[in-house]
């Protein structure tokens, strides 16, 4: 067994264990941390597959942004509401049944019907050509997939707009600045002259 294979099987077992942790932990904070570990582990496995840029992006974007957002939301909610009361419910045997069927079908396809795939890397490939992965990805992304790239940017813009407009709320009784009234003010409204009676003793 070569060094690469040892690395693969160690990281693969970590990935499976932490994925099980995501669905089995009672506390959602533990689930989120378990998901973080599984993301980092799969980033390490992607490095074995020469996807260096995407491995770093997975750690930066997923662990750095998305999972922090998850943890932030979990901690914002009341912890008694988000704790699961019992570890297994009545759907558990059914879920195990469905999951085992899905895995069994996929593994059957992979191991017995995989004659079409090349099982070892194609010898003269573009990933092995000495060009760095980031350069290769960027060159392809900005030539062949430019329109899709712009659509992806638009999707991100849409996500920003949607999440802000969903979570923004106006509370009653809040003293906030009203710019239009400030701009439209004139001199007569600023100052009010009141005649006072002389109060001489």
């Amino acid at each position, binding site marked *: 067994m070569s060094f690469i294979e040892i690395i*693969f099987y160690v990281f*693969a077992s970590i990935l*499976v264990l932490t*994925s*099980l942790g*995501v*669905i089995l932990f009672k506390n*959602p904070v533990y689930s*989120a941390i378990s*998901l973080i570990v*599984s993301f980092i582990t*799969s980033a390490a*496995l*992607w490095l074995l*597959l020469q*996807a260096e*840029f*995407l491995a770093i992006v997975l750690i930066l*974007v*997923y662990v750095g942004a*998305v999972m922090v*957002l*998850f943890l932030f*939301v979990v901690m914002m*909610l009341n912890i008694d*509401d988000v704790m*699961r009361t019992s570890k*297994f419910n009545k759907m558990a045997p059914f*879920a*195990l049944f469905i*999951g*085992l069927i*899905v*895995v069994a079908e*996929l*593994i059957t396809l*992979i*191991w017995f019907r*995989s004659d079409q795939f090349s*099982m070892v*890397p*194609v010898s003269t*490939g573009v*990933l*092995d050509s000495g060009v760095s992965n980031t350069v*290769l*990805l960027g060159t*392809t*992304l900005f030539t062949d*997939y430019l329109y*899709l790239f712009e659509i992806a940017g638009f*999707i*991100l813009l*849409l*996500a*920003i707009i*949607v*999440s802000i407009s*969903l*979570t923004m709320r106006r509370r009653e009784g809040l003293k906030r600045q009203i710019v239009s009234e400030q701009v439209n003010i004139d001199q007569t409204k600023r100052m009010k002259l009141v005649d006072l009676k002389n109060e001489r003793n």
Partner: protein
Amino acid sequence: MLTLQPYLTLAAIVFGIGVMGIIINRKNIIILLMCTELLLLAVNFNFIAFSYFNQDITGQIFVFFILTVAAAEAAIGLAILVVLYRNKNSIDVQKLQTLRE
């Protein structure tokens, strides 16, 4: 020498765990969103593996777009979750049956 099958098998197992998590979990929407992330991770794993074994960069481009969409989906999902918690004071999946009544 590692062939393609161990990678695909690993992705299939992670995918199965994600499916199981979605069915098993009737209590908490946050875990549901996390299981969706697991499913997307398994799909990405398949793309990366095929990209390496076919020596074609297109698979990695696809993973790039899937990551973008998944980030947008997580942001919108969590925003919906926050609004839901604000209105109902609960994120229990089984209490979300307003449309059924």
